[in-house]
């Protein structure tokens, strides 16, 4: 039925379609022209502002978390930040944390691909698209601050979720998940979160 109707209307439709096709193609060309500049820059390895900011957030988060003492071999053992899978930060995280200490601990950045490696970190960043690379049990069973950036990550019981409010970065804290992992997140950080989830 619909097919027949579509055919009957085809003639007039083709008229506009052709025009629409032409102009859409024009629009696309317009887009591509403009893309040439920015993508050339992107290829040089520039990290988007979003991940520059997120790197700074991750560094800041380490100041507000208390891990169980057993997670560190010694009083001055470094805090290890792990980035799971594809690293969206480039060298940004290293650049930000270089030469800085938090509570007398240096910060080490590692790119992680296996569960075994993941269990050694204190803070694990799970980039968008990497949520299912490792079983969620990895960060649910060990005191690891798991930081993600997607709804699907929130569903996996992560500790901190980045969100966006217009063009500003916001974050939510799942305090129940933190408690289950025996992490203490300072009230100061909780106050800055746009939401503090207390559900399991």
């Amino acid at each position, binding site marked *: 039925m619909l097919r027949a109707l579509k055919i009957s209307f085809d003639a007039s439709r083709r008229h506009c*379609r052709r025009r629409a096709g032409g102009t*859409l193609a024009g629009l696309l060309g317009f887009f591509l022209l403009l893309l040439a*500049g920015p993508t050339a820059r992107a290829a040089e390895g520039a990290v988007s*502002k979003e991940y520059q*900011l997120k790197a700074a*957030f991750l560094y800041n988060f380490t100041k507000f978390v208390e891990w169980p003492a057993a997670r560190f071999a010694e009083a001055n053992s470094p805090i290890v930040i792990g980035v799971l899978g594809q690293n969206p930060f480039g060298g940004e995280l290293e650049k930000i944390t270089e030469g800085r200490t938090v509570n007398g601990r240096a910060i080490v950045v590692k790119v992680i691909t296996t569960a075994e490696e993941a269990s050694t970190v204190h803070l694990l960043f799970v980039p968008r698209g990497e949520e299912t690379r490792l079983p969620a049990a990895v960060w649910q069973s060990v005191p690891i601050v798991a930081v993600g950036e997607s709804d699907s990550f*929130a569903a996996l019981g992560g500790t901190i979720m980045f969100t*966006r409010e217009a063009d500003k970065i916001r974050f939510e804290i799942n305090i129940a998940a933190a408690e289950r992992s025996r992490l203490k997140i300072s009230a100061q950080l909780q106050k800055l979160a746009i939401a503090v989830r207390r559900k399991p």
Partner: protein
Amino acid sequence: MPSRFPTPLLAAALCAVSLGSAQTGELLRRPAKNLADMSIEELMNEPVTSVSKKETPLGESPAAITVITPDDIRRLGIASLPEALRLVPGLDVARIGANETAVSVRGFNNEFANKLLVLIDGRSVYSPSSAGVFWNAQDVVFEDLERIEVIRGPGATLWGANAVNGVINIITKSARETQGALVVTALGTEERPTTTARYGGQLAPNLYYRVYAKYFDRPSVKTSAGGDAGDGWHSLRSGFRVDYEPSAENVFTLQGDAYQSDVGKNISLFSLTPPFSQTASVLEHNAGDNVLGRWTHVFSETSRLTLQGYYDFLRQDVGSSIDRAETCDFDLVHQVALGDRHDITWGAGYRDTLAKDTSTFGASWAHESHRLQLFNVFAQDEIALVPDRLQFTVGTKFEHNELSGEEWEPGVRLRWTPTARQTVWAAASHAVRTPSFLERDSRLNLAAGPGFLVSIFGNPEIGTEKLTAYELGYRVAPAKQLSFEASAFYDVYHQLIVNEPNPPGFEISPVPPHALISQTWRNSAQGETYGAELSVHWQATAAWRLAGSYAWLHSNLTSVPFVGSSSPGQQIQIRSNLDLPHHVELNGAVTYVGAIVTPLGQINAPIPAYVRLDLGLIFHPAAAMEVGVWGVNLLDRRHPEFTSPQSTTVAEMPRGITGKITWRF
């Protein structure tokens, strides 16, 4: 005349833009701040991209604006766009039946309320054939909705023709905000069932997509006589959206949807031979598709360009006739600050609509196809007379279309912000409503009997309806938890289109020869409406939020039999959102809608006032899952809200109960 996109303009824009990008792109990069030294508060104030809309904080907008958030919609379990609009003070939403809704603001409600412009992600869904919105053809995935912005009062200076009494902007989230899988299923007396599936993923760095499909099947309701209104319907819709943010200066969006639906209706068919009139149950097949591309480019902190193009196809059964319309539209908007005091927004647009309408006995057309080409340019300047205190906005749109010629739609607005917690604004604006193809070109046979026919004739000479509106508004937030808003309007209408009786006549065609009782659409009515909308929001405790609103409307229109103006005089709504322990939310709304004293054509009986109570309980068994149950219209078994001029029976809206599961993974 063949349609041509203004190519020189495009070429010029292209040159200017690519030059701008190449030469100034690098210059715009500010020296990188040392992010490591910033506190979390400071980081939270840093924009991710400089492509952010130039947004005036809502509390300071010099217009009667209400924003519906996805949270408002989620809490009340709202499943359709018209139902969501009930949350806006002064919006007049009246269900005609299961699948038809009349939506208007500040008067003139009708199945095709013709003074309200509606856009979904920048695409107009106002039909130039019927002058109005086919609400049963519009839908979104509510979980992917960013917000619905409703502006009461004219928006013609920026949005152009038909933004007479209001503009509704329905805006969906960027694909990057809707990553992962979502499945929603609702089952209830009004849903049997509705299922939505959406998946969002990432194709490359900064390149995100989502795809969705949504199906619903909604049952018919009963008529006031107790019979079946025959208006059950089902619909399948799917679509995609791709967002690409390659750099801080550019955002690209490509999106599209396609749908088809089978919509049940009881219609009256007339003939000049016995039985003259009979009611038929029909299943209308409606379909549509659209694709839209948008590019936003930032030249600098104070200069930003948006270019958008879309194609839209619509096939809609309208009573006994079929409307097929396709539209190509291009828009350019540039926002630029000149000095410290001037914020200029200017732009241009071109739209080409080709409509084909089939003729039947009930509705016939002098021409089977109609073409409407619309060209517009506009400019608006926001002038800071006293920085942060007094702002004056002046602007106009100039439109040209082949049918009604040239239109100017100017407006001025003044905003005074005496303290950080108070805003006073005033506005005067002019808007027009262009005649529909129907009013211009059709013949509707409304009733027939032995030897006579009742008809309405289109009028090729018909002109635009004109409005001059005066508005006044006040907003105050006495405390962080409490805000109050009031707006008042006085609208003066000229050249309103009504059908005026002709002297009785005689026709030999169609056969058999018969007496003709006819009317013709003419710009012969005028009048004024005035009223006010009040609303208050109170965050009573951290877990309890209350909202209340009141709207009052008075119409004073010339005494010609006025068809199509039927809005309640008063509306009241109180909403409560309560977060309970154990991840439970209890939400509710009580709405009073006043009587409609003179319904359409004064043929049908007045619609009595009604009170509606909706309650919902939501539970989160897991972080990624939400289970809700809602009861709507709890106070009565069923009640009428509106009457359709096409139907002699009145459908009534029943009490309903719906359960819904939302699952993200």
